[in-house]
């Protein structure tokens, strides 16, 4: 029995010893070198931007004893769960709402942003997204990098042949259906009405998963809705929930009209999931997505061209030529009626489209041992050259005004939209976590209404009054979710 015990103990000890071999903390310093772990998003890694950034930084800081490495973690890794135990990154790239949730719980550090090179060329609206007020003092906890907003993706080779004669009434060389929602509705209806396929599902116009508040926020925020109101000192007041404010119900009526020209995939995430393939195969004329998905559209479109007989290189080139990414149409009808002809509408009948957006940026973990080195890194990563490289590699819209101006085009337009208030930024407080589910439930239910009516059932949201009541209930649900368990 003694031998048996010895054998068992021997096996276990050998196992543990082997386990220790090759184990080492990646955060340890090698000699005098400080190693920073950088968590970037997957697209930046996939497209090679992270490698370019790390290489450039490491070359620049080789003599200063700082080295940056890929944190090599999931892009949505939870800093709150891993940071305190020492397993989180030193620098994290995330959207403003996520970063500021960390800031509220003190998982990321306040930063002296005025010392950064990008400070003076970044608009105040972008900095605002990363500000937090604690005990009357305002801190900035993130460094803006790029603006995210829902964009419209379409294929140039799917434009109607007669668009210049029939769909460009003002002759400004921009199709009317990309300028106002009533014409987008009209063109979508035309496509649906002329769909002669057996199942009637081969051509759709505008497509979006309407249950998604972020992608379809224009139906609320353009009409005066807001997420949280402000206190006298300018800080956000989570008790003042305003999704039902202004004429939000009219916007939801417009959304319901648009839903009637889609399919039941608009009720849930189906369209979001299918968007790349369906745009590539020509079933969807245009679809809503965010700029960071540009490369996924290209990939799918290139595959579709390859299937038509082009070589891989030709297909990719053709995909890049034909895939267009533009902002959502800039004008919505003030009365929320998309079915009216734009011919009969005057300037006063329109309101500006306001979309929901966000600012992605860098935050510095509170658990880093090397705050100064992290500052050096974010300063380098937000420099003119690196932001320009990021823009060219990933197709993002930078928050640096100098880079946006130099690039022009869509990038500059997005930058202007942020500066001019046409992007409603996701509020940067923790309570924002509670808005998504109630809003998503209602928006999905409203999108379902045309399909209820088509099935012979009674619609739930037929009048503006019914929509008002429903969206007010959402405000109350959000309030309850934020405050019921708070005390």
């Amino acid at each position, binding site marked *: *029995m*003694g*031998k*048996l015990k010895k054998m*068992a103990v021997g*096996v*276990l000890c050998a*196992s*543990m010893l*082997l*386990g*220790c071999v090759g*184990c080492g903390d*990646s955060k340890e310093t090698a000699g005098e070198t400080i190693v920073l772990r950088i968590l970037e998003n*997957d697209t930046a*890694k*996939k497209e090679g931007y992270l490698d370019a950034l790390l290489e450039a930084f490491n070359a620049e800081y080789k003599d200063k004893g700082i080295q940056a490495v890929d944190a*090599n*973690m*999931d892009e949505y*890794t939870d800093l709150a769960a*891993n940071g305190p*135990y020492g*397993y989180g990154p030193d620098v994290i790239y995330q959207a403003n709402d996520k970063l500021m949730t960390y800031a509220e719980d003190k998982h990321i550090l306040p930063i002296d942003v005025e010392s950064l090179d990008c400070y003076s060329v970044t608009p105040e609206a972008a900095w605002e997204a990363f500000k937090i007020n604690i005990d009357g003092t305002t801190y900035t906890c993130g460094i803006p990098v790029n603006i995210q907003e829902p964009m419209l993706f379409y294929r140039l080779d799917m434009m109607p042949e007669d668009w210049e004669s029939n769909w460009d009434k003002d002759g400004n060389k921009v199709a009317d259906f990309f300028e106002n929602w009533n014409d987008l509705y009209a063109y979508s209806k035309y496509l649906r009405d002329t769909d002669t396929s057996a199942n009637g599902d081969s051509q759709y116009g505008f497509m979006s998963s309407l249950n998604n508040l972020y992608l379809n926020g224009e139906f609320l925020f353009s009409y005066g809705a807001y997420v949280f109101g402000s206190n006298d000192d300018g800080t956000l007041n989570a008790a003042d929930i305003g999704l039902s404010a202004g004429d939000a119900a009219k916007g939801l009526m417009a959304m319901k009209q648009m839903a009637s020209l889609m399919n039941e995939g608009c009720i849930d995430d189906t369209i979001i*999931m*299918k968007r*790349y*393939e*369906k745009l590539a195969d020509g079933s969807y004329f245009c679809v809503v997505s965010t700029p960071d998905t540009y490369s*996924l559209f290209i*990939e*799918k479109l290139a*595959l579709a061209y390859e*299937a038509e007989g082009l070589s891989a290189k030709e297909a990719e080139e053709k995909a890049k030529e034909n895939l267009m990414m533009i902002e959502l149409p800039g004008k919505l009808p003030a009365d929320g009626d998309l079915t009216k002809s734009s011919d009969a509408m005057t300037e006063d009948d329109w309101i500006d489209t306001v979309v929901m957006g966000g600012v992605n940026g860098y935050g510095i973990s509170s658990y880093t041992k090397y705050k100064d080195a992290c500052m050096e890194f974010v300063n380098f990563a937000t420099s003119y050259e690196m932001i320009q490289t990021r823009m060219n590699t990933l197709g993002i819209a930078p928050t640096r005004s100098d880079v946006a101006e130099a690039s022009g085009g869509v990038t500059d337009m997005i930058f202007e939209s942020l500066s001019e208030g046409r992007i409603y930024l996701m509020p940067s407080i923790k309570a924002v976590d509670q808005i998504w589910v109630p809003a998503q439930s209602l928006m999905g239910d409203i999108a379902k209404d045309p399909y209820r009516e088509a099935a012979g059932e009674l619609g739930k949201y037929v009048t503006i009054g019914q929509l008002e009541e429903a969206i007010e209930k959402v405000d109350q649900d959000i309030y309850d979710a934020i405050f019921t368990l708070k005390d």
Partner: protein
Amino acid sequence: MSKKIDSVVTHMILIAVCLVFVFPILWLVLASFSKSGSIYDIDGFFPSEFSFNSYHKLFVDTAMYDYPNWLQNTLYVAFFSSLIGTVLVILTAYTISRFTFKSRKMLMKSTLVLSMFPSFMGMTAVYLMMVNFGLINQLWSLILIYAAGAPMGYLVQKGYFDTISNTIYEAARIDGASNFTIFVKVTLPLAKPMLVYTALTQFAWPWSDFILPNLLLKNKDLWTVAVGLTHLGETEFTRFAAGAVFIAVPIVALYFALSRFLVVGVSQGAVKE
């Protein structure tokens, strides 16, 4: 006549049940050979165009999703978990089966009750323990937990050892054999089917587990296949299917190769003579 009808109906029901079980697997295998990467390109039940592209990408396109590395990690964890776990289970089962000692009955009842609790119940405690031991982001933390938990499932092995006749042990003891000699030279050779069964089951659990590796492994280069596959991008369904099919191949091959022992092990472990 009624016998024939009975046979036909029984076979039809069995074929229908088989189809229900086989269809999802068949669908996944075919989806893994789909030319496109996305599930949404599949019109109807099956893909229209086939290629080895997903399998090729699985092993070549490793910049974002390093499947070969995940496979290596999985194999490493499963092999050592199986090795240590098997030793511990066999020792536990043999001890409980052959020796009478104080609190033996109580120990058996306790392990029976404890094994009924789902393993994920203690995950928070496991996480905190691993943090304090500095074992997060270590493949050996998984091996330690799998192996340490393995003896809880000793009952089948004990049942097998119970079937070995006592006279063999008595004869060995009369010949002067010690406990260790009896275990090594008498029991183990007789328990080959059970050893194979135990090693296989101890291998299969870590091979496909998701919850524990997902909890303890933060670095991508330490992920196991189950964790890595869940992190594939939304347009990578066929790669997911290919990864899921490929991970099943070794374990299926092992089961087929060792099925002879497996059947004997399970059946004899379930019967007490």
